[in-house]
Protein backbone atom coordinates (compact mmCIF):
# COMPACT_ATOMS: atom_id res chain seq x y z
CA UNK A 1 0.00 0.00 0.00
CA UNK A 2 1.20 3.47 -0.81
CA UNK A 3 1.47 5.62 2.29
CA UNK A 4 0.35 9.22 2.49
CA UNK A 5 2.85 11.82 1.29
CA UNK A 6 2.92 13.47 4.71
CA UNK A 7 3.82 10.21 6.46
CA UNK A 8 6.75 9.58 4.15
CA UNK A 9 7.92 13.18 4.47
CA UNK A 10 7.91 12.75 8.22
CA UNK A 11 10.14 9.68 7.87
CA UNK A 12 12.55 11.68 5.69
CA UNK A 13 12.64 14.47 8.23
CA UNK A 14 12.94 12.21 11.28
CA UNK A 15 15.47 10.01 9.50
CA UNK A 16 17.78 12.98 8.96
CA UNK A 17 17.14 14.56 12.33
CA UNK A 18 17.45 11.30 14.29
CA UNK A 19 20.51 10.11 12.31
CA UNK A 20 18.69 7.11 10.80
CA UNK A 21 20.08 6.84 7.27
CA UNK A 22 18.29 3.56 6.59
CA UNK A 23 14.93 5.14 7.31
CA UNK A 24 15.80 8.00 4.93
CA UNK A 25 16.80 5.62 2.12
CA UNK A 26 13.63 3.57 2.56
CA UNK A 27 11.42 6.67 2.60
CA UNK A 28 13.18 8.27 -0.40
CA UNK A 29 12.66 5.10 -2.43
CA UNK A 30 9.03 5.11 -1.34
CA UNK A 31 8.62 8.68 -2.64
CA UNK A 32 10.03 7.59 -6.02
CA UNK A 33 7.90 4.43 -6.20
CA UNK A 34 4.73 6.32 -5.32
CA UNK A 35 5.52 9.05 -7.85
CA UNK A 36 5.36 11.83 -5.25
CA UNK A 37 7.16 15.07 -6.01
CA UNK A 38 10.93 14.75 -5.42
CA UNK A 39 11.51 18.49 -5.00
CA UNK A 40 8.88 18.65 -2.28
CA UNK A 41 10.42 15.62 -0.56
CA UNK A 42 13.89 17.15 -0.54
CA UNK A 43 12.73 20.51 0.78
CA UNK A 44 9.96 19.55 3.16
CA UNK A 45 11.49 16.26 4.27
CA UNK A 46 15.29 16.06 4.10
CA UNK A 47 16.17 19.72 4.41
CA UNK A 48 13.54 20.34 7.05
CA UNK A 49 15.17 17.55 9.07
CA UNK A 50 18.64 19.02 8.56
CA UNK A 51 17.45 22.42 9.68
CA UNK A 52 16.04 20.87 12.85
CA UNK A 53 19.47 19.32 13.44
CA UNK A 54 20.97 22.78 12.90
CA UNK A 55 18.71 24.25 15.57
CA UNK A 56 19.93 21.65 18.06
CA UNK A 57 23.54 22.30 17.01
CA UNK A 58 23.00 25.98 17.69
CA UNK A 59 21.65 25.11 21.15
CA UNK A 60 24.64 22.84 21.83
CA UNK A 61 22.45 19.77 22.09
CA UNK A 62 23.90 18.34 18.88
CA UNK A 63 27.63 18.52 18.21
CA UNK A 64 29.84 17.81 15.22
CA UNK A 65 29.38 13.99 15.21
CA UNK A 66 25.60 14.26 15.24
CA UNK A 67 25.54 16.98 12.59
CA UNK A 68 27.80 14.98 10.25
CA UNK A 69 25.68 11.83 10.54
CA UNK A 70 22.50 13.85 9.96
CA UNK A 71 24.09 15.31 6.84
CA UNK A 72 25.11 11.83 5.60
CA UNK A 73 21.45 10.83 5.85
CA UNK A 74 20.34 14.00 4.07
CA UNK A 75 22.80 13.52 1.20
CA UNK A 76 21.86 9.81 0.88
CA UNK A 77 18.23 10.87 0.42
CA UNK A 78 19.14 13.61 -2.06
CA UNK A 79 21.13 11.09 -4.15
CA UNK A 80 18.01 8.94 -4.55
CA UNK A 81 15.63 11.84 -5.23
CA UNK A 82 17.79 14.06 -7.46
CA UNK A 83 17.29 12.02 -10.69
CA UNK A 84 13.54 12.52 -10.25
CA UNK A 85 13.58 16.31 -10.08
CA UNK A 86 11.61 17.99 -12.87
CA UNK A 87 13.13 20.63 -15.14
CA UNK A 88 11.03 23.39 -13.60
CA UNK A 89 12.29 22.54 -10.13
CA UNK A 90 15.57 24.35 -10.62
CA UNK A 91 14.97 27.47 -8.55
CA UNK A 92 17.37 30.39 -8.65
CA UNK A 93 19.64 29.95 -5.65
CA UNK A 94 22.10 32.29 -4.00
CA UNK A 95 25.60 31.25 -5.01
CA UNK A 96 28.48 30.81 -2.59
CA UNK A 97 32.16 30.06 -3.10
CA UNK A 98 33.73 28.50 -0.01
CA UNK A 99 37.16 27.18 0.94
CA UNK A 100 40.07 27.05 3.37
CA UNK A 101 42.76 29.58 2.46
CA UNK A 102 46.17 28.65 1.09
CA UNK A 103 48.63 27.10 3.56
CA UNK A 104 45.98 25.52 5.74
CA UNK A 105 44.54 22.00 5.42
CA UNK A 106 42.16 22.04 8.42
CA UNK A 107 38.71 21.86 6.89
CA UNK A 108 36.19 20.46 9.35
CA UNK A 109 34.81 23.91 10.18
CA UNK A 110 34.49 24.80 6.51
CA UNK A 111 32.74 21.48 5.84
CA UNK A 112 30.19 22.17 8.56
CA UNK A 113 29.42 25.58 7.06
CA UNK A 114 29.05 23.95 3.64
CA UNK A 115 26.56 21.39 5.00
CA UNK A 116 24.49 24.09 6.68
CA UNK A 117 24.58 26.23 3.52
CA UNK A 118 23.41 23.28 1.41
CA UNK A 119 20.57 22.80 3.87
CA UNK A 120 19.77 26.51 3.83
CA UNK A 121 19.27 26.37 0.06
CA UNK A 122 22.47 27.97 -1.21
CA UNK A 123 24.28 26.75 -4.31
CA UNK A 124 27.65 25.98 -2.77
CA UNK A 125 30.88 25.82 -4.79
CA UNK A 126 33.37 24.15 -2.48
CA UNK A 127 37.02 24.73 -3.45
CA UNK A 128 38.27 22.50 -0.63
CA UNK A 129 41.30 23.26 1.51
CA UNK A 130 44.71 24.86 0.98
CA UNK A 131 43.12 26.90 -1.83
CA UNK A 132 45.31 29.36 -3.80
CA UNK A 133 43.96 32.84 -3.00
CA UNK A 134 43.37 33.81 -6.64
CA UNK A 135 41.12 30.76 -7.07
CA UNK A 136 38.48 32.31 -4.79
CA UNK A 137 38.28 35.36 -7.04
CA UNK A 138 38.31 33.36 -10.27
CA UNK A 139 35.61 30.97 -9.12
CA UNK A 140 33.42 33.76 -7.75
CA UNK A 141 33.62 35.56 -11.12
CA UNK A 142 33.01 32.37 -13.08
CA UNK A 143 29.84 31.31 -11.23
CA UNK A 144 28.68 34.80 -10.29
CA UNK A 145 28.81 34.07 -6.57
CA UNK A 146 27.22 36.67 -4.31
CA UNK A 147 29.15 35.34 -1.33
CA UNK A 148 32.73 34.28 -0.76
CA UNK A 149 33.34 32.35 2.47
CA UNK A 150 36.93 32.05 3.71
CA UNK A 151 38.07 29.82 6.54
CA UNK A 152 41.32 29.22 8.41
CA UNK A 153 42.37 27.69 11.71
CA UNK A 154 45.85 29.15 11.69
CA UNK A 155 47.42 32.50 12.48
CA UNK A 156 50.03 31.96 9.77
CA UNK A 157 47.41 31.96 7.02
CA UNK A 158 44.82 34.48 8.23
CA UNK A 159 46.40 37.34 6.28
CA UNK A 160 45.49 35.47 3.09
CA UNK A 161 41.91 36.59 3.73
CA UNK A 162 42.94 40.23 3.46
CA UNK A 163 44.76 39.38 0.22
CA UNK A 164 41.57 37.96 -1.31
CA UNK A 165 39.74 41.19 -0.46
CA UNK A 166 42.59 43.22 -1.99
CA UNK A 167 42.38 41.10 -5.15
CA UNK A 168 38.66 41.82 -5.44
CA UNK A 169 39.39 45.54 -5.09
CA UNK A 170 42.15 45.44 -7.70
CA UNK A 171 39.78 43.81 -10.16
CA UNK A 172 37.18 46.45 -9.38
CA UNK A 173 34.62 43.85 -8.28
CA UNK A 174 34.72 44.27 -4.51
CA UNK A 175 31.09 45.41 -4.38
CA UNK A 176 29.89 42.41 -6.40
CA UNK A 177 30.86 39.85 -3.77
CA UNK A 178 30.21 39.82 -0.04
CA UNK A 179 33.05 38.25 1.94
CA UNK A 180 32.41 36.24 5.12
CA UNK A 181 35.31 34.94 7.20
CA UNK A 182 35.63 32.48 10.09
CA UNK A 183 37.88 30.04 11.91
CA UNK A 184 39.81 29.64 15.18
CA UNK A 185 41.94 32.82 15.20
CA UNK A 186 39.39 34.97 13.38
CA UNK A 187 37.34 37.59 15.22
CA UNK A 188 34.89 40.37 14.41
CA UNK A 189 37.73 42.81 15.08
CA UNK A 190 39.90 41.11 12.46
CA UNK A 191 36.99 41.10 9.99
CA UNK A 192 36.55 44.84 10.53
CA UNK A 193 40.26 45.44 10.17
CA UNK A 194 40.56 43.73 6.78
CA UNK A 195 37.22 45.04 5.52
CA UNK A 196 35.35 41.72 5.36
CA UNK A 197 31.56 42.04 5.18
CA UNK A 198 30.84 39.48 7.87
CA UNK A 199 32.27 37.21 10.52
CA UNK A 200 30.71 34.08 11.98
CA UNK A 201 31.71 32.21 15.10
CA UNK A 202 30.15 28.88 14.06
CA UNK A 203 28.27 27.11 11.24
CA UNK A 204 24.81 28.22 12.31
CA UNK A 205 26.06 31.77 12.68
CA UNK A 206 27.48 31.69 9.14
CA UNK A 207 23.99 31.10 7.74
CA UNK A 208 22.55 33.98 9.75
CA UNK A 209 25.32 36.31 8.57
CA UNK A 210 24.92 35.16 4.95
CA UNK A 211 21.18 35.73 5.01
CA UNK A 212 21.46 39.14 6.62
CA UNK A 213 24.08 40.28 4.08
CA UNK A 214 21.90 39.10 1.19
CA UNK A 215 18.87 40.84 2.69
CA UNK A 216 20.87 44.08 2.76
CA UNK A 217 21.81 43.61 -0.91
CA UNK A 218 18.16 43.05 -1.81
CA UNK A 219 16.95 46.07 0.18
Amino acid at each position, binding site marked *: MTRERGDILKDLMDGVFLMNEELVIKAANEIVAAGYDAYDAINNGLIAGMNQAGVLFDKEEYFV*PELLICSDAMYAGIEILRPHLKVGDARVKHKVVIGVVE*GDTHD*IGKNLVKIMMDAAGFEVHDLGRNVPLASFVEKAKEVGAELICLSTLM*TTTMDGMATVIEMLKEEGIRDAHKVIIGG*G*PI*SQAFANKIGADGYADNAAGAIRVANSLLAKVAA
Partner: protein
Amino acid sequence: MKTNVAIPADTQTSLERVMSYLKGEKPQRVACFPLILNHAARVLGVPVGKYNRDGKAMGNSHVAAWKRYGHDLVLIFSTTSTLAEAMGTKMKFFDEDAPQIDVPFLKQHSDISKLKVPDFSKDGRLPVYMEATEICVKEIGSQVVVSTVFGGPFTTAAALYPVELLTRDLIKNPKWVHELLEICTQAGIKFIDEILKRGALPVIVEPIGSGSLVSPRHFHEFVAPYLKRLADHVHKNGGGFPAALHICGKTKSNWMAMLEADFDIWSLDDVDLGEAKKAVGHRVVLIGNVVPANLLKNTAEEIDEEARIICEKMGDKTGFILGSGCEVPINTPPENIDALINAARKYARFDQ
Protein backbone atom coordinates in the same frame (compact mmCIF):
# COMPACT_ATOMS: atom_id res chain seq x y z
CA MET B 1 46.50 51.93 30.43
CA LYS B 2 49.20 51.29 32.97
CA THR B 3 51.95 50.74 30.46
CA ASN B 4 54.17 53.22 32.25
CA VAL B 5 54.02 51.38 35.56
CA ALA B 6 57.60 50.48 36.52
CA ILE B 7 58.43 46.84 35.93
CA PRO B 8 59.64 45.32 39.20
CA ALA B 9 62.71 43.09 38.85
CA ASP B 10 62.39 39.37 39.54
CA THR B 11 64.44 37.97 42.39
CA GLN B 12 63.18 34.39 41.96
CA THR B 13 64.36 32.23 39.08
CA SER B 14 61.75 30.68 36.79
CA LEU B 15 62.36 27.32 38.43
CA GLU B 16 61.88 28.74 41.97
CA ARG B 17 58.72 30.51 40.87
CA VAL B 18 57.17 27.36 39.42
CA MET B 19 58.34 25.26 42.38
CA SER B 20 56.43 27.65 44.67
CA TYR B 21 53.20 26.56 42.97
CA LEU B 22 54.11 22.89 43.41
CA LYS B 23 54.90 23.41 47.10
CA GLY B 24 51.62 25.24 47.63
CA GLU B 25 53.44 28.49 48.48
CA LYS B 26 52.83 31.90 46.95
CA PRO B 27 55.52 32.87 44.45
CA GLN B 28 56.90 36.40 44.31
CA ARG B 29 54.66 36.96 41.31
CA VAL B 30 52.39 34.92 39.08
CA ALA B 31 54.33 32.76 36.60
CA CYS B 32 53.96 33.40 32.89
CA PHE B 33 53.69 30.65 30.28
CA PRO B 34 53.39 32.15 26.81
CA LEU B 35 53.07 28.97 24.73
CA ILE B 36 56.24 29.55 22.72
CA LEU B 37 56.45 26.57 20.38
CA ASN B 38 57.40 26.94 16.69
CA HIS B 39 58.09 30.65 17.33
CA ALA B 40 61.33 29.52 19.06
CA ALA B 41 62.78 28.95 15.56
CA ARG B 42 62.44 32.68 14.90
CA VAL B 43 64.56 33.52 17.95
CA LEU B 44 67.44 31.30 16.83
CA GLY B 45 66.90 32.38 13.23
CA VAL B 46 66.40 28.95 11.67
CA PRO B 47 63.61 28.07 9.22
CA VAL B 48 60.58 26.56 10.97
CA GLY B 49 60.90 23.57 8.62
CA LYS B 50 64.41 22.90 9.94
CA TYR B 51 63.36 23.43 13.57
CA ASN B 52 60.73 20.76 13.05
CA ARG B 53 63.04 18.12 11.64
CA ASP B 54 66.36 18.66 13.43
CA GLY B 55 66.64 17.95 17.14
CA LYS B 56 69.63 20.25 17.59
CA ALA B 57 67.85 23.12 15.86
CA MET B 58 64.70 22.50 17.93
CA GLY B 59 66.60 22.27 21.22
CA ASN B 60 68.86 25.22 20.52
CA SER B 61 65.87 27.31 19.41
CA HIS B 62 64.20 26.80 22.78
CA VAL B 63 67.41 27.55 24.67
CA ALA B 64 67.74 30.79 22.66
CA ALA B 65 64.06 31.65 23.15
CA TRP B 66 64.27 31.15 26.91
CA LYS B 67 67.42 33.26 27.14
CA ARG B 68 65.67 35.97 25.12
CA TYR B 69 62.31 36.02 26.93
CA GLY B 70 62.81 34.38 30.34
CA HIS B 71 59.37 32.76 30.28
CA ASP B 72 58.58 30.25 33.03
CA LEU B 73 57.99 27.07 31.03
CA VAL B 74 59.93 25.79 28.03
CA LEU B 75 57.69 23.75 25.72
CA ILE B 76 59.26 21.38 23.17
CA PHE B 77 56.68 20.91 20.42
CA SER B 78 56.04 20.97 16.70
CA THR B 79 52.52 19.61 16.11
CA THR B 80 49.78 17.76 17.96
CA SER B 81 50.15 14.88 15.46
CA THR B 82 53.71 13.83 16.32
CA LEU B 83 52.74 10.57 18.04
CA ALA B 84 50.41 9.68 15.16
CA GLU B 85 53.17 10.51 12.69
CA ALA B 86 55.48 8.07 14.49
CA MET B 87 52.69 5.49 14.20
CA GLY B 88 52.39 5.92 10.43
CA THR B 89 50.48 9.10 9.54
CA LYS B 90 52.21 11.09 6.76
CA MET B 91 52.76 14.81 7.33
CA LYS B 92 53.06 17.67 4.90
CA PHE B 93 56.04 19.90 5.71
CA PHE B 94 56.40 23.61 5.08
CA ASP B 95 59.53 25.76 5.14
CA GLU B 96 58.00 28.43 7.32
CA ASP B 97 55.11 26.75 9.09
CA ALA B 98 54.41 23.77 11.31
CA PRO B 99 53.69 20.47 9.53
CA GLN B 100 50.09 19.45 8.88
CA ILE B 101 48.47 16.05 8.39
CA ASP B 102 48.75 14.85 4.81
CA VAL B 103 47.67 11.18 4.77
CA PRO B 104 46.26 9.57 7.92
CA PHE B 105 47.65 6.07 8.55
CA LEU B 106 44.33 4.25 8.95
CA LYS B 107 42.40 3.97 5.69
CA GLN B 108 39.81 1.52 6.99
CA HIS B 109 38.85 0.00 10.32
CA SER B 110 40.78 -3.23 9.67
CA ASP B 111 44.07 -1.29 9.36
CA ILE B 112 44.05 -1.04 13.15
CA SER B 113 45.75 -4.46 13.20
CA LYS B 114 48.87 -2.78 11.74
CA LEU B 115 48.98 -0.09 14.42
CA LYS B 116 51.75 -0.29 17.02
CA VAL B 117 53.12 1.76 19.89
CA PRO B 118 56.06 3.60 18.28
CA ASP B 119 59.75 3.06 18.90
CA PHE B 120 61.00 6.32 20.40
CA SER B 121 64.56 5.77 19.18
CA LYS B 122 63.62 5.78 15.50
CA ASP B 123 59.96 6.29 14.54
CA GLY B 124 58.81 9.51 12.89
CA ARG B 125 60.27 12.62 14.47
CA LEU B 126 60.27 11.26 18.01
CA PRO B 127 64.10 11.26 18.04
CA VAL B 128 63.97 14.98 17.15
CA TYR B 129 61.77 15.65 20.19
CA MET B 130 63.98 13.51 22.43
CA GLU B 131 67.18 15.23 21.34
CA ALA B 132 65.61 18.68 21.74
CA THR B 133 64.41 17.73 25.24
CA GLU B 134 67.87 16.52 26.24
CA ILE B 135 69.53 19.71 24.98
CA CYS B 136 67.14 21.99 26.90
CA VAL B 137 67.34 20.00 30.14
CA LYS B 138 71.14 20.03 29.94
CA GLU B 139 71.51 23.70 28.99
CA ILE B 140 68.80 25.45 31.04
CA GLY B 141 67.09 22.76 33.12
CA SER B 142 68.60 24.09 36.35
CA GLN B 143 66.87 27.44 35.85
CA VAL B 144 63.51 26.65 34.24
CA VAL B 145 61.12 23.71 33.92
CA VAL B 146 61.51 22.07 30.52
CA SER B 147 58.44 20.31 29.16
CA THR B 148 57.72 18.25 26.08
CA VAL B 149 54.28 18.36 24.55
CA PHE B 150 52.37 15.57 22.81
CA GLY B 151 48.84 14.89 21.59
CA GLY B 152 46.47 13.07 23.94
CA PRO B 153 44.80 9.78 22.95
CA PHE B 154 41.78 11.35 21.27
CA THR B 155 43.86 13.86 19.30
CA THR B 156 46.31 11.14 18.27
CA ALA B 157 43.38 8.95 17.16
CA ALA B 158 42.03 11.84 15.06
CA ALA B 159 45.44 12.16 13.38
CA LEU B 160 45.55 8.43 12.61
CA TYR B 161 42.03 8.28 11.17
CA PRO B 162 40.35 11.25 9.47
CA VAL B 163 38.67 13.35 12.13
CA GLU B 164 35.38 13.54 10.24
CA LEU B 165 35.17 9.75 10.09
CA LEU B 166 36.33 9.34 13.67
CA THR B 167 33.66 11.70 14.98
CA ARG B 168 30.97 9.75 13.10
CA ASP B 169 32.32 6.53 14.59
CA LEU B 170 31.77 7.86 18.12
CA ILE B 171 28.12 7.14 17.35
CA LYS B 172 28.36 4.43 14.70
CA ASN B 173 31.32 2.27 15.81
CA PRO B 174 32.14 3.12 19.43
CA LYS B 175 33.79 -0.23 20.12
CA TRP B 176 36.36 0.33 17.35
CA VAL B 177 37.06 3.84 18.59
CA HIS B 178 37.78 2.46 22.06
CA GLU B 179 40.21 -0.07 20.54
CA LEU B 180 42.00 2.74 18.75
CA LEU B 181 42.09 4.92 21.86
CA GLU B 182 43.59 2.04 23.83
CA ILE B 183 46.61 1.89 21.50
CA CYS B 184 46.95 5.69 21.50
CA THR B 185 46.87 5.66 25.31
CA GLN B 186 49.64 3.07 25.44
CA ALA B 187 51.70 5.25 23.09
CA GLY B 188 51.02 8.24 25.36
CA ILE B 189 52.15 6.35 28.46
CA LYS B 190 55.37 5.45 26.65
CA PHE B 191 55.82 9.12 25.73
CA ILE B 192 55.44 10.10 29.40
CA ASP B 193 58.07 7.54 30.42
CA GLU B 194 60.52 8.75 27.77
CA ILE B 195 60.08 12.40 28.80
CA LEU B 196 60.27 11.77 32.55
CA LYS B 197 63.40 9.69 31.96
CA ARG B 198 65.00 12.79 30.45
CA GLY B 199 64.09 15.00 33.40
CA ALA B 200 61.37 16.97 31.61
CA LEU B 201 57.67 17.51 32.30
CA PRO B 202 55.23 15.77 29.93
CA VAL B 203 52.43 18.11 28.81
CA ILE B 204 49.36 16.69 27.08
CA VAL B 205 47.37 18.58 24.44
CA GLU B 206 43.91 17.37 23.48
CA PRO B 207 42.55 19.95 21.00
CA ILE B 208 40.22 17.45 19.33
CA GLY B 209 38.44 17.23 22.70
CA SER B 210 37.43 20.89 22.35
CA GLY B 211 33.81 21.71 22.99
CA SER B 212 33.53 22.76 19.33
CA LEU B 213 33.97 19.14 18.27
CA VAL B 214 32.90 16.92 21.14
CA SER B 215 29.89 17.00 23.45
CA PRO B 216 30.24 16.54 27.23
CA ARG B 217 28.70 13.07 26.86
CA HIS B 218 31.30 11.99 24.29
CA PHE B 219 34.09 13.65 26.27
CA HIS B 220 33.03 11.59 29.28
CA GLU B 221 32.98 8.37 27.25
CA PHE B 222 35.89 8.76 24.82
CA VAL B 223 38.25 11.44 26.10
CA ALA B 224 38.28 11.68 29.90
CA PRO B 225 38.93 8.00 30.77
CA TYR B 226 42.01 7.81 28.55
CA LEU B 227 43.35 11.20 29.64
CA LYS B 228 42.93 10.07 33.22
CA ARG B 229 45.22 7.11 32.64
CA LEU B 230 47.90 9.53 31.43
CA ALA B 231 47.38 11.83 34.43
CA ASP B 232 47.53 8.85 36.79
CA HIS B 233 50.75 7.72 35.14
CA VAL B 234 52.34 11.14 35.66
CA HIS B 235 51.16 11.22 39.29
CA LYS B 236 52.58 7.77 39.93
CA ASN B 237 55.90 8.14 38.11
CA GLY B 238 56.53 11.86 37.83
CA GLY B 239 58.41 12.42 41.09
CA GLY B 240 56.12 15.27 42.12
CA PHE B 241 55.51 16.69 38.66
CA PRO B 242 51.91 17.79 38.13
CA ALA B 243 49.73 16.48 35.30
CA ALA B 244 49.27 19.32 32.78
CA LEU B 245 46.62 19.50 30.05
CA HIS B 246 46.02 22.01 27.26
CA ILE B 247 42.82 22.11 25.23
CA CYS B 248 42.46 24.79 22.54
CA GLY B 249 39.36 26.63 21.49
CA LYS B 250 36.08 26.60 23.37
CA THR B 251 35.98 24.24 26.33
CA LYS B 252 33.40 25.61 28.75
CA SER B 253 30.78 23.00 27.85
CA ASN B 254 33.26 20.23 28.69
CA TRP B 255 34.75 21.57 31.95
CA MET B 256 32.85 19.16 34.19
CA ALA B 257 33.78 16.19 32.01
CA MET B 258 37.39 17.45 31.91
CA LEU B 259 37.56 17.32 35.71
CA GLU B 260 37.08 13.56 35.48
CA ALA B 261 40.49 13.28 33.83
CA ASP B 262 42.10 14.42 37.10
CA PHE B 263 44.72 16.85 35.79
CA ASP B 264 46.31 19.43 38.11
CA ILE B 265 46.87 22.20 35.54
CA TRP B 266 44.66 23.30 32.67
CA SER B 267 45.77 25.63 29.92
CA LEU B 268 42.64 27.19 28.41
CA ASP B 269 42.04 29.22 25.28
CA ASP B 270 38.72 30.71 24.17
CA VAL B 271 37.01 31.02 27.56
CA ASP B 272 36.44 33.59 30.30
CA LEU B 273 39.27 32.60 32.64
CA GLY B 274 37.62 34.33 35.61
CA GLU B 275 34.54 32.21 35.05
CA ALA B 276 36.76 29.11 34.83
CA LYS B 277 38.37 30.02 38.16
CA LYS B 278 34.96 30.21 39.80
CA ALA B 279 33.85 26.91 38.26
CA VAL B 280 36.96 24.74 38.60
CA GLY B 281 39.62 26.84 40.35
CA HIS B 282 39.26 24.76 43.52
CA ARG B 283 40.48 21.73 41.57
CA VAL B 284 42.97 22.95 38.97
CA VAL B 285 45.58 25.65 38.37
CA LEU B 286 44.58 27.67 35.30
CA ILE B 287 46.88 28.96 32.56
CA GLY B 288 45.70 31.57 30.13
CA ASN B 289 44.63 33.22 28.04
CA VAL B 290 45.71 36.21 25.93
CA VAL B 291 44.23 35.69 22.45
CA PRO B 292 46.97 34.26 20.18
CA ALA B 293 45.89 36.28 17.13
CA ASN B 294 46.14 39.41 19.26
CA LEU B 295 49.76 38.59 20.10
CA LEU B 296 50.40 38.56 16.38
CA LYS B 297 48.32 41.59 15.38
CA ASN B 298 48.01 43.96 18.34
CA THR B 299 50.47 46.43 19.82
CA ALA B 300 52.48 45.82 22.99
CA GLU B 301 50.26 48.37 24.77
CA GLU B 302 47.15 46.42 23.78
CA ILE B 303 48.70 43.13 24.98
CA ASP B 304 49.60 44.82 28.28
CA GLU B 305 45.99 45.91 28.72
CA GLU B 306 44.53 42.53 27.69
CA ALA B 307 46.84 40.73 30.16
CA ARG B 308 46.02 43.26 32.91
CA ILE B 309 42.31 42.56 32.51
CA ILE B 310 42.91 38.79 32.72
CA CYS B 311 44.97 39.28 35.91
CA GLU B 312 42.18 41.41 37.36
CA LYS B 313 39.58 38.73 36.58
CA MET B 314 41.64 36.18 38.46
CA GLY B 315 40.84 37.84 41.79
CA ASP B 316 43.28 36.72 44.48
CA LYS B 317 45.45 35.31 41.65
CA THR B 318 46.04 32.02 43.40
CA GLY B 319 46.06 28.93 41.17
CA PHE B 320 46.72 31.16 38.16
CA ILE B 321 49.48 31.33 35.57
CA LEU B 322 49.34 34.09 32.98
CA GLY B 323 49.82 32.83 29.42
CA SER B 324 48.62 32.72 25.84
CA GLY B 325 45.39 30.88 25.03
CA CYS B 326 47.12 28.71 22.46
CA GLU B 327 50.40 28.67 20.54
CA VAL B 328 52.18 32.02 20.30
CA PRO B 329 51.96 32.65 16.53
CA ILE B 330 55.24 32.03 14.73
CA ASN B 331 55.59 35.63 13.54
CA THR B 332 54.61 37.30 16.82
CA PRO B 333 56.65 40.50 17.41
CA PRO B 334 59.05 39.81 20.33
CA GLU B 335 57.96 42.99 22.15
CA ASN B 336 54.45 41.53 22.49
CA ILE B 337 55.83 38.48 24.31
CA ASP B 338 57.84 40.81 26.53
CA ALA B 339 54.66 42.79 27.21
CA LEU B 340 52.83 39.62 28.26
CA ILE B 341 55.59 38.55 30.67
CA ASN B 342 55.99 42.08 32.02
CA ALA B 343 52.26 42.14 32.72
CA ALA B 344 52.76 39.25 35.16
CA ARG B 345 55.51 41.29 36.83
CA LYS B 346 53.33 44.39 37.02
CA TYR B 347 49.81 43.18 37.72
CA ALA B 348 50.08 39.83 39.47
CA ARG B 349 52.40 40.08 42.47
CA PHE B 350 52.20 38.42 45.86
CA ASP B 351 55.07 40.35 47.49
CA GLN B 352 53.41 43.74 47.78
